[in-house]
């Protein structure tokens, strides 16, 4: 069992979400950074379908109860300490009962992930553990995690800890690749050119549903007014509402919308888009559909190769209070596995 000793403003339980239910008005949701989900699964040597804690901007503090838990931290790097000792990000380690894991502010992105061996085992709702705050479904009673919550943890198959992965290239990426959107032809060619030439600032008006983008120049306007009859929207759509300030539609987007979508972020750059920190500036780059598919194929291969990219965490022992927590030498199996075998 994992106790939330203190919680940042937006900790939610997420997994891959609820695909296939858009016909009921149910959006897929799930993690904002699917690469981070895969990285955590690789670090713990477990299935990528298990639920994790997604931490938006700031973490919290956590304690294990009962058995030692294997933990991995991925996504946006956050300041982390295990019983006061600094922890590197993108690593796996053992959290023993009595130890406190403290996770602070995100330093190079937005969404950090806490993975636990066996996965967070809150009940599934409509086929997923993902929290959708607006509909109050999934997670723990459909809400964000709060101080004092105790999360059930699934059976951990066990495996080594003390592994590290290099930080993904998506952090620091300030060029987001797009295809023109389903309603791009509502905008004049000149307006579309201007969209590509504009530098945008990621505003702090953003959540799991979408992010408002501040253009360095004028707002954008559709040439032909749409009839406003709603249509399906997809993950990564850049829609332009009446005020001309584009909004990137992210994991918990509405399934339908009536504003024109000028562009759609390519699948391979969705995680990079979600991780752009507030106030950072970036641009969009138009690519061909074939480039988008090549990038997606490359990302899929990167995910498949993650387990081969891991290396043992080598640190200066003088910096470390508790070598055992990292199982540095030979990947001692977890206490939990010993208990259950």
């Amino acid at each position, binding site marked *: 069992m994992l106790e939330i000793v203190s919680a940042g403003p937006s900790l939610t339980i997420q997994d891959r979400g609820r695909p*296939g239910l858009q016909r009921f008005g149910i959006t897929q949701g799930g993690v904002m950074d699917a690469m981070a989900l895969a990285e955590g699964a690789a670090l713990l040597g477990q299935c990528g379908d298990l639920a994790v804690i997604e931490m938006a901007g700031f973490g919290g503090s956590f304690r294990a109860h009962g058995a030692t838990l294997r933990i991995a931290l991925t996504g946006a790097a956050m300041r982390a300490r295990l019983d006061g000792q600094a922890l590197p990000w993108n690593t796996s380690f053992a959290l023993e009962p009595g130890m406190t894991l403290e996770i602070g502010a995100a330093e190079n992105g937005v969404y950090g992930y806490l993975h636990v061996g066996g996965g967070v085992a809150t009940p599934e709702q409509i086929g997923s553990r993902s929290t959708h705050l607006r509909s109050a479904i999934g997670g723990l009673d459909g809400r964000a995690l709060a101080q004092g919550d105790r999360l059930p943890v699934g059976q951990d198959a066990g495996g080594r800890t003390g592994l590290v992965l290099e930080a993904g290239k998506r952090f620091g990426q300030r060029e987001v690749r797009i295809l023109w959107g389903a309603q791009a032809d509502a905008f004049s060619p000149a307006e579309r050119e201007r969209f590509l030439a504009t530098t945008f600032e990621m505003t702090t008006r953003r959540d799991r549903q979408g992010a408002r983008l501040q253009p360095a120049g004028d707002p954008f306007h559709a040439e032909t007014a749409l009839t406003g009859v709603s249509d399906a929207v997809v993950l990564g759509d850049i829609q332009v509402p009446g005020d001309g300030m584009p909004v990137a539609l992210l994991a918990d987007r509405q399934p339908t919308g009536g504003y024109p979508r000028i562009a759609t972020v390519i699948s391979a750059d969705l995680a990079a888009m979600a991780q752009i920190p507030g106030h950072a500036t970036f641009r969009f780059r138009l690519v061909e559909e074939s480039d988008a598919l090549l990038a997606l*194929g490359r990302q899929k291969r990167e995910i498949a190769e993650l387990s081969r990219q891991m290396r043992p965490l080598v640190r200066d022992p003088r910096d470390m209070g508790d070598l055992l927590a990292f199982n540095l030498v030979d990947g001692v199996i977890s206490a939990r596995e010993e208990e259950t075998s």
Partner: protein
Amino acid sequence: MTGEPSTACPPGRHTAPVLRAAGDSALLVEFGDRLDPAINNAAIAFDARLRQAALAGVSETAPTIRSVLVRYDPLEIAPAALRAALTELLDERDWLSAPAPAQRSLWRIPACYGGEHGPDLDEIADLVGCTPREAAERHANAHQRVFMLGFAPGVAYLGLLPEAWNIPRLKEVRPEVPACSLLVAIRQTVLFAAAMPTGWRSIARTPFRSFDPRRQPPVLIAPGDEIGFEPVDAAAFVRLCESAEAGKDIVTRESLS
């Protein structure tokens, strides 16, 4: 294949159907750009055909008011191959002459009009040009079609109401209307499942939960169904809410096929 939009067809001069890329993993099959039962029937019928065809690599389809969303894995089926497969299915018939879905239902759903549950009823009646009582009766008896489930889980877009109901949206968005409110504007009704901000006027509230995650399936009504409302008073509304909370059926369903 380029990232250019598939067509430069301006809204209002639509030649159906049109395939539009929506990113690298979805296509929209657009049958029109209006709220029109014929266009909606085409979308519902083509969605049913796609489900039957079960094209490899297609992960999900969903009908909207005027189109069908086709989500796919482009590493499993190339966009050009999917477009060809969709075009072949589109050529099978004139989808705009497709009838309403065979298995459709008429739902009768209780609703409490006016007062605290429908605070804008008087204003709506003024705009429609009748008494509040008449407005409630006309709205309840209109037998509106479900054009789409969208916006949020179980939210139903209903219409079309008579021309007199072509009332504008509010100038200012309301921060929140309670869950299960019936909102009207531009000849449509939206049945909201959860509390939401809105720019539409609230005419009534129903004890029926169009989305209930405890129920299997969580959403009962389907595109193409029709909905009539049964006016109930505030006391009955409270009783029916309790029944719904206890998981009891408070709506009736009649087959229209």
